[in-house]
């Protein structure tokens, strides 16, 4: 379970302004909202990559911001993070990149053969052929493949929670659909709690158990995809309906 408790963060202007909600174990939550409303900041705050000015995040009851370094490392091992541009290590092969997803102690203990099996399993989970990609460098992969390698790196350590930052941004619709199916499948097969930050509303509604809408640093809507689609809130309608969006833009 992930609990956001009164998160505030200001850079040049307030980005998070009192975010309070919880994501239940095994749930898939899509966080949607206009650009620059703090979605990525919220996601990075989840594992302490960004420190909020106020508030806390608790993962399975443990505080992210009031824990010592060792506890934070342990919390982070429970969480896989899929970055917007995959954030693969340029100088490492796909094999090395994915193996970095394992805890260091486990990585040291594993024999090369066992490690290769773990990496291959993770790659197969994301529909990649290990024999074809393991020896390649990230620069030799397409955008969709890089995202999937990033996903493989996030799941190889068998996390309880997966955080996705714009998982389909920059991908064509076909590759986007593949990634969305993967997110659903991983959540179902591995029982993973997922938080997906995205602009892509159609895909978000298809994979999410609940949708949260973040706007001006606050959660403006939290409900099921059906409730989201039926909502009469102008902001929600603007997100769902292009004509309504133009109306909101005109008001702005």
């Amino acid at each position, binding site marked *: 379970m992930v609990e956001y408790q009164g998160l505030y963060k200001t850079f040049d202007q307030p980005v998070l302004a009192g975010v309070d909600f919880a994501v239940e174990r095994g749930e898939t939550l899509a966080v949607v909202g206009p650009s620059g409303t703090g979605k990525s900041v919220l996601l990075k705050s989840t594992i302490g*990559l960004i420190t909020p000015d106020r508030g806390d995040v608790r993962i399975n009851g443990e505080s992210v911001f009031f824990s010592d370094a060792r506890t934070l*490392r342990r919390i*982070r091992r429970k969480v896989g*993070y899929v*970055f*917007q541009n995959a954030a693969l290590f*340029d100088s490492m092969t796909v094999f090395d990149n994915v193996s*970095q*997803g394992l805890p260091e102690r486990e990585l040291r203990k594993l024999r090369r053969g066992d490690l290769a099996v773990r990496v291959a399993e993770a790659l197969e989970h994301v529909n990649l052929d290990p024999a074809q990609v393991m020896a390649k460098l990230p620069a030799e992969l397409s955008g969709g493949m890089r995202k999937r390698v990033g996903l493989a790196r996030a799941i190889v350590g068998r996390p309880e929670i997966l955080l996705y930052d714009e998982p389909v941004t920059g991908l064509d619709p076909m590759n986007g659909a593949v990634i969305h199916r993967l997110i659903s499948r991983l959540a179902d097969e591995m029982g993973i709690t997922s938080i997906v930050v995205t602009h892509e509303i159609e895909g978000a509604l298809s994979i999410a158990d609940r949708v949260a809408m973040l706007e001006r640093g606050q959660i403006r809507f939290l409900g099921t995809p059906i409730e989201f689609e039926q909502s009469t809130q102008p902001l929600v309608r603007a997100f769902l309906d292009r004509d309504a969006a133009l109306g909101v833009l005109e008001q702005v």
Partner: protein
Amino acid sequence: MEADGKLMQRPPAASGRTGSPGRRVLGALDAVGRGGRHVAQHAGQLGGLLWGIIIATLRGQVPLREVAAQAYWMGVLSLPIVIITAMLAGVVTSQQGGYQFTGGVPLYVLGSVVVSSIVLELGPVMTAIVLIGRVGARITAEFGTMKVSEQIDAMQSLGRDPVRVLAAPRVIAGILVVPILVGIADTVGVFAGMLTASATVGLGREAFFYGARLFWHDWDLLYSLAKGVAFGFAIPLIAIHMGFRTAGGAEGVGKATTSSVMFMTLTVLFLDAIFPPLLLN
């Protein structure tokens, strides 16, 4: 607001300054405050980085394989450019010294001038300047790119500490390798100076080393290597610090690398300036 509006519309004064004296003073104080905050930020972040490196080193958590890889890259792969630079420094010092001593000064003094110049100053400083370009700039660009492409965040999200895994090996390698490079640069520079003295003013090898021994102190060599340790510590530390501070995409990486080179050069020259009062008196 109206007053502000009028101020905004007023053409610049002949001196190029605008506003009342009080406003100018406030502006100057504001600039000093911002500068002070900037310096304090750098100092605090550098201190935090250094502390992390010390803790990781004392706990034996630094990956030794990475230290070896960095030592090879900083040391062995820098050798050609360090040797060429030292050779040219020796050649120039010897030629200019030879030109100045064609008078009443005994020519063998040239040996002392070349050896002292190379060992006390040119060997360590020229090596450091070369390493700023070859090692420091690359570290900043590499770390800056990792920062803006979220690779540093990825590393943290995977439970790896970038200071322990990336920063500490580079600083340790710098401390170990740069004094050795300085020693090699000193040796090459002195021999290049000796050969040049022989070729240009006809000063033989024995006379050259006789002159060199006249004013030689064994401490000079330690002094030279100590400069190597200081530069080997400062260059990667600053390069890493500037890389970690990078923001704003490719342009940010370029800016960070330029600032880093300036910062490293000034630091090397500053350290070079404080070495004599600390260790030669």
